[in-house]
C-alpha cells in the first residue's frame, strides 16, 4: 500500500501523498465538452425564447426534449456547482434563510439557485451579496416544474419548496412514484403483478404529464420525436452497459469514477447521435486498453465496489487517492444499477412503458432485498475484493441499506467493507482522515485474508 501516509504526516496535517494517478480515459474529454455545451445552451434558453422546466429525480429529459423545452435537472445542477467549487454560495443562501444543513444538499443547492435566481436584481444583489456571474444565478428561472422522484419523499418536498420559492406562480406537475415493496412473494425484480401495477400507474401519469406539457406549449406533443430521441438514448445505454461489462477484465480498463464522469449522457444530456458516439468511443477505448493490458490504475492490487452516491466535488481527487492505494474502484451501485439500466425493455413504438420500468427500478427505487441481490451479482461478476460504503449524510434514500449491504456481503461473500460518511455536494461532511484510516484497515484485511489463503 504505497500511498498509506505516516503518523508524522498526519500530525503535520499534510495532504496524503498521491504517489500514483488514475489512468483517465481520453473519451471522457468528449463528455466534458458535451456537458459544457449543454449548460451553455441552457443558460441561453430564455434569450432564445425557449421554455425552461426544472425537474429532478428520474430522467424526464427525453419527454421535454421532444416538446422543445429546455430543462434543468436539479441534481445535475448541484453536481455541476460542486464539481466547479461553486456550491457554497447557494448553500449559504439557504442557511441564511434558515434551512438546516442536515437537509438534502442537492435540494439546498438547487433551491438556493432558485433563491439566487430570484435575487438577481441590483437591489437583491446588494442585499444578499449575490454575484450574478456565478453559475447558480445563471440557471434560467423555470416556466414549469415537473416533480417525479422515486422512493425519496424529500424529492417531492424539494419540488414543493421550489414551487413556493417561485411564489406559486410556476405551474407544477406532481408525478407520484409508488415503491414496489413486495407485499406478496410474487413480487420480483421487474416482474409480478405488483410491479406491473406500479408501472401502469406511472405510465398513466407520464401520459398526463404530456398533456400538462401540451397545455403549456400550446402544441400537440410529438410522439415520433420522443421515439427518435429514445432510440439514441436506448442505444447509448446499451453501449454503456456493454462497455461496463468489459471491465471484468484484469486489470480493469475503466473505473467507477470514469463511469461517474459519464453519467450526464444517460441522465440529462439531450438524446441524439452525440451520446451514442460518445459511448462508442468509450467502448472502443476500453477494448483497446484490454488488448494492451492497460488498467485504470497503474497497479491493480485490489478491486473494489463503491456503494453510495458520488462525492461530486472529489471525483478526480478520490480517483487518484485510490490509484495511490493500488486499488481500482471497478464498479458501483450508483453507476451500474441506474440510468437506463434496463434498456432492453424500451419499445421504441411505445417508449413510455419501458421508460417507466427503468424509472421504477433505479437503485433507490428497488427495496433493500433486491438491492443486495443485485450488488452480490455485480461483486461476483467483477470479482470484487472489498466494498467502500459512502454514507451520503444528507441522502438517506441512498444510505439507508448500507449496514444491511455490509452484513450481507460479509456473510455471503466474505468481503470486508469500509464505511464512512460524506455527502453529494456538501463537502463539509467529508473527513479525509477518517476515510484514509478506514480504507487502509480494509485493504489490510484483504491482504491478511490473501495471506491466509496462500
Amino acid at each position, binding site marked *: 500500500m504505497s500511498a498509506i501516509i505516516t503518523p508524522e504526516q498526519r500530525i503535520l496535517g499534510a495532504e496524503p501523498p498521491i504517489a500514483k494517478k488514475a489512468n483517465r480515459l481520453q473519451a471522457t474529454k468528449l463528455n466534458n465538452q458535451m456537458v459544457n455545451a449543454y449548460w451553455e445552451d441552457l443558460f441561453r434558453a430564455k434569450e432564445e425564447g425557449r421554455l425552461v422546466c426544472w425537474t429532478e429525480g428520474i430522467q424526464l429529459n427525453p419527454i421535454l426534449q421532444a416538446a422543445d423545452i429546455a430543462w434543468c435537472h436539479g441534481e445535475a445542477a448541484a453536481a455541476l456547482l460542486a464539481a466547479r467549487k461553486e456550491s457554497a454560495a447557494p448553500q449559504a443562501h439557504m442557511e441564511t*434563510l434558515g434551512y438546516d444543513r442536515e*437537509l438534502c444538499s442537492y435540494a439546498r443547492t438547487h433551491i438556493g439557485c432558485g433563491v439566487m435566481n430570484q435575487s438577481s436584481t441590483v437591489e437583491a444583489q446588494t442585499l444578499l451579496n449575490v454575484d450574478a456571474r456565478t453559475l447558480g444565478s445563471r440557471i434560467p428561472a423555470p416556466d414549469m416544474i415537473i416533480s417525479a422522484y422515486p422512493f425519496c*419523499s*424529500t424529492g417531492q*418536498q424539494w419540488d414543493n419548496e421550489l414551487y413556493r420559492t417561485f411564489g406559486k406562480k410556476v405551474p407544477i406537475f406532481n408525478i407520484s412514484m409508488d415503491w414496489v415493496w413486495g*407485499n406478496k412473494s410474487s413480487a420480483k425484480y421487474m416482474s409480478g403483478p405488483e410491479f406491473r401495477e406500479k408501472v401502469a*400507474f406511472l405510465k398513466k401519469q407520464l401520459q398526463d404529464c404530456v398533456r400538462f406539457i401540451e397545455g403549456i406549449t400550446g402544441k400537440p406533443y410529438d410522439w415520433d420525436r420522443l421515439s427518435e430521441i429514445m432510440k439514441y438514448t436506448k442505444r447509448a445505454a446499451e453501449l454503456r452497459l456493454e462497455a461496463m461489462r468489459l471491465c471484468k477484465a484484469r486489470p480493469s480498463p475503466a473505473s467507477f469514477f470514469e463511469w461517474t464522469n459519464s453519467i450526464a449522457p444517460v441522465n440529462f444530456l439531450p438524446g441524439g447521435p452525440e451520446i451514442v458516439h460518445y459511448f462508442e468511443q468509450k467502448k472502443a477505448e476500453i477494448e483497446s486498453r484490454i488488448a494492451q493490458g492497460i488498467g485504470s490504475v497503474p497497479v491493480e492490487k485490489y478491486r473494489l465496489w463503491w456503494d453510495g452516491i458520488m462525492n461530486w466535488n472529489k471525483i478526480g481527487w478520490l480517483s487518484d487517492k485510490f490509484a495511490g492505494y493500488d486499488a481500482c474502484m471497478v464498479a458501483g451501485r450508483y453507476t451500474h444499477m441506474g440510468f437506463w439500466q434496463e434498456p432492453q425493455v424500451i419499445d421504441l413504438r411505445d417508449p413510455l412503458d419501458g421508460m417507466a420500468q427503468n424509472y421504477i427500478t433505479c437503485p433507490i427505487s428497488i427495496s*433493500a432485498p433486491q438491492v443486495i441481490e443485485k450488488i452480490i451479482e455485480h461483486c461476483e461478476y467483477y470479482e470484487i475484493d472489498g466494498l467502500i460504503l459512502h454514507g451520503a449524510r444528507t441522502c438517506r434514500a441512498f*444510505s*439507508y441499506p448500507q449496514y444491511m449491504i455490509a452484513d450481507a456481503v460479509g456473510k455471503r461473500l466474505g468481503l470486508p467493507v469500509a464505511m464512512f460518511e460524506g455527502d453529494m455536494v456538501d463537502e463539509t461532511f467529508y473527513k479525509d482522515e477518517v476515510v484514509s484510516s478506514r480504507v487502509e484497515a480494509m485493504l489490510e484485511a484483504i491482504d491478511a485474508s490473501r495471506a491466509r489463503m496462500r
Partner: protein
Amino acid sequence: MNTVLDKFAQAAQRPYEHVKAWKQERGVKAVGTLPMHFPAEIIHATGALPVIVQEMPDAITSGGGAMYPFFCGYTRSIVDQVTEDQLGFLDAIMFTDHCVQLLSAADVIRISRPETTIHFHQLIASLRQPWSLESSVKTLRELVADLEEVLGVVVTEEALRHSISVFNENRRLIRDLYQMRRTGQIQLRASQMQHIVKSSMVMDKETHNALLRELIASLKTSTAPRSDTVAIYVSGHLCHAPRPEILDLIEECGATIVDDDLYTGYRYVSTDVDAGIGDPIVALATAYIRKNDNVPCPTRIDPEVDWEEWLLGAVDRCGAQGLVVLLVKFCEPHYFAYPRIKAAFERNDVPHLMIETEHDGVAMENVRTKVESFVEMIKVQRAARAVAA
C-alpha cells in the same frame, strides 16, 4: 378523575405492556401501524387491536448497528425495538405513509427480522391530483384485502362503518377536551393531553371512549379567566410524541400550552370520517385527502395549503401569545417548512421559538433558559402594549 388520567398515563408510558395485557385478556390479535395517516379503523374492523408503534425513550443499542445516526429518532428507535425483540407481540405491522426515513426503517426491519410480517400500501402523498382520491381508494381496498389474508378474516362494510363511528366518537371526545382547554374551562397540562392522545393510539377505542366520557363528566369546569401565565401554542413533532418533560418544562416557565398541532395531539384527532358517504373505504380515503385542510401536514404535497399561514390563524384562534416549534432533528419535511414558519411569524410580529429535539437527549437546562427568556420577552411586549393602549 385522577384514576382515569392515571389509566391514560399508564397506557401512554408503558404502551406495549398495556397491549400485551389486552391481548392476553381478550385473546385478540394486535397489528402495529407506523405513523402518520394510517386509517386504523380498517384494523379495528378486522377485530384486531390497532397499535401505533411508539418512539421509546430507551437508548439506541443494537439498532445503532443497523441504521446510520443521521436518521430521525423515531425511525432509529423503532429499528432498535425490533432488533431488541420488543415488538414480537405484534401479529403484523402495516404502514401507508410515504416518508423516506419511515420506508428505510421498515426495510431495515424486514431484513433484520424476516419473520416479521411488515406490509406497505402507499397512500399517494400528492393530495390535489385529479386521481388522488381514486388512488387512495384503490390503496385502501388493497390494504383491506391484504389484512383479510394476513389475519384470516373477512372485513364487512358493516364492521367498517361501526369502526368509523367508534373512531369518530373518540376524535370528537378528545376535540371536546381541546376546546374546553382552549377556552380555559378546564386546566389539563400538555403532558396530560399527550397521555390522553397517546393512550388512544394503543388502547381499544371503545374502552378509551368510555374512559373519556368518564373523564369529561368528572372535570370541574370553570369560567374564571385564565391565570396570568403566557398562553402558548406548540407545533411540530409530526410522527411521534415529544418527551413529556419538555412540555412540562415549558409550562414550568410561566407558560400554559393552550393548543397544539402535534401528532400526539390535535393533529391525531383533527378530522372525522364522513359516515354519510355510502362506501366506507371511499369515506376513509376522502378523510385522508381532506385532513390537510384541517391541520396541514408538510409530508403531504398540497399546493393549496400553507402550513405557516394556517399556524398564524391557529395561534390567533386559541388566543396564544406565542408559538413554540418542536422540531425533530433530521426531520426533512419539517426542515423544509420551518424557514417559512419563521418568516411568517416574524413578518406578523408574533413571537416564536424553535426547539430542536433529539432522541438521544435534549439539554433541558439549555431549553429552560430559552423558554424562560421567550416567556419574559412576551410578558415585556404585553406590558408595553398595555401601556401604549
